[in-house]
């Protein structure tokens, strides 16, 4: 090859070395890999509530952040609600979108692919006759979810498809949505 090419390492703001280091450390110490995530929700009125998020358990001990986070939720005016915040359903779609984009960034970084922009549009279809108890054969949740990525990156279409596929393979929220899981509720 005649032209000398300066290869610049991809920088998507992901510390791949640290992630790989953590992966190796947790492989050696499986109990440290057991994490528990939490959200604590306070009801205001109607459908309006606020979840506060701070501590979690991981690496064998309680972890706290300097500042916590609040996520409010409500229902829209269409349902005679106060519309103070997004519906829980939209928060689920946002969680899926964020989980996948984070995965895309990490995997692209690991594969040496520079991302210029990533935008993802998520839609979930729902037949309201499920949640409203009109038709017992209709499920409450989404009947279909569509995820559409718009990615500008220094990579071929096939490489981008590979990154997107891998981000789904390793996404926690994608797994939660596509597989059944047990939920156990108690009253304190």
């Amino acid at each position, binding site marked *: 090859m005649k032209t000398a090419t300066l290869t610049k390492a991809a920088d998507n703001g992901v510390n791949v070395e640290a992630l790989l280091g953590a992966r190796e450390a947790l492989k050696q110490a499986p109990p440290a890999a057991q994490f528990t995530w939490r959200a604590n929700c306070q009801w205001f009125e109607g459908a309006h509530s606020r979840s506060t998020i701070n501590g979690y358990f991981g690496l064998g001990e309680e972890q706290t952040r300097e500042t916590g986070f609040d996520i409010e939720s409500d229902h829209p005016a269409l349902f005679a609600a106060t519309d103070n915040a997004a519906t829980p359903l939209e928060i689920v779609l946002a969680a899926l979108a964020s989980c996948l984009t984070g995965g895309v960034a990490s995997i692209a970084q690991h594969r040496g692919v520079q991302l210029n922009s990533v935008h993802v549009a998520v839609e979930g279809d729902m037949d309201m006759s499920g949640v409203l108890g009109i038709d017992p054969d209709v499920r409450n949740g989404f009947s279909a979810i569509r995820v559409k990525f718009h990615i500008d990156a220094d990579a071929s279409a096939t490489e981008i*498809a*590979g990154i997107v*596929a*891998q981000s*789904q393979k390793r996404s926690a929220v994608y*797994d939660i949505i*596509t597989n*059944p899981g047990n939920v156990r509720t108690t009253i304190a």
Partner: protein
Amino acid sequence: MRRTTAVIIGAGQSGLAMSFELMQRGIDHIVLERGEVANSWRYERWDSLKLLTPNRMNTVPGIPYDGPDPDGFMSVSGLVARFDTCLARTSFPVKTGTTVLSVVRLDRGYRIQTDQGALEAEAVVMATGACNHPKVPTFAQTAPGDIVQTSPLRYKRPSDLPEGKSLVVGASASGLQLARELQLSGRQVTLAVGNHTRMPRRYRGRDILEWMGRIGVTSTLYSDVPDLDRVRRLPSPTLTADETLDINTLQTLGVEVVGRCVGLEGGEAHFAGSLANTCALADLKMDRLLDTIDAFTTQKEFGDSPSIDARPAPTQLPDDPRLRIDLAREGYTSILWATGFAPDFSWLRAPHFDTKGRLMHDGGIVAKGLYVMGLPYLRYRRSTLLYGANDDANVLANHMQLGFKSVCAA
């Protein structure tokens, strides 16, 4: 107590290959076999199965393929006949009808307890293979009692199963072939598709295994593989003797495709909603392999390679694959678990297992004088293929011989 220098457990391809190598080196040994020579091939394969490797690769110890159809695919009975020829030509020291109950370490060597008495040996080679038990998920126990459950190790032919619909779980080589066989027998089949390694049988005029050999994929030693754990866990490729069989062609036959089977609850089977991505990953990975082959041919300017073939079509899927099936209500009468296999070393009483119960070894060397063969990527990708056993046996026999020499010198 009978003493011998080495004991080989299992008289299949790996065990006989090792026996052959030890005979060449004049190492006194005995091969213990629970049933007959090539027992799994004789009794634990279905009737219509053809080998997944072309005939030229199907060497048995001491006998390369010399038949008229090196590119063809022999039936299992053809392979069994070759084992019988091999037995007629070479006098292997096999003790058939002998089941190993335990292997324990002694100060020097090992004690092997069998149902026919005990032996002591300096070295033990575990050649019982990677497929002793079907890996059936634990939730299988909760299936309705009147549904017949089977696995590729027990299933022989469609008439083994009752009339009615059948759920085939797993879409690697066994699942694809058995889904087709059952569908063609008139049983409506639903195929649950999990992670799989898609591969076309032929590409650019050659068998894919021949290409993999040429591009060096099959000759990478285990110690040079960056993420060996992952590679050893990979599902085996969807290679079958028939080049047209895949998830697309099964659907044209009327097979219904659903996602990975994730549970059974109250007679209802549940499937993952990730089918589209599972198939996208398999298609992308196949295309990367074919890209590597294309790049290799361009680089080497193979005059004899036909121009780029059309690639296998991307996997087509229904818009809304079903997530739940009420098995009894819809008339399902059988479930075939083609979900892979696991080896069984429960008779080895020694601390050589990791936290997940998997045997730990370094390219087939478990401990001093203790060897294992025939596991996925034991030394090479070909280690689980018929022709891979000979090379592994050669290397491990050399290691064993050196070990004996160092003991004598000490």
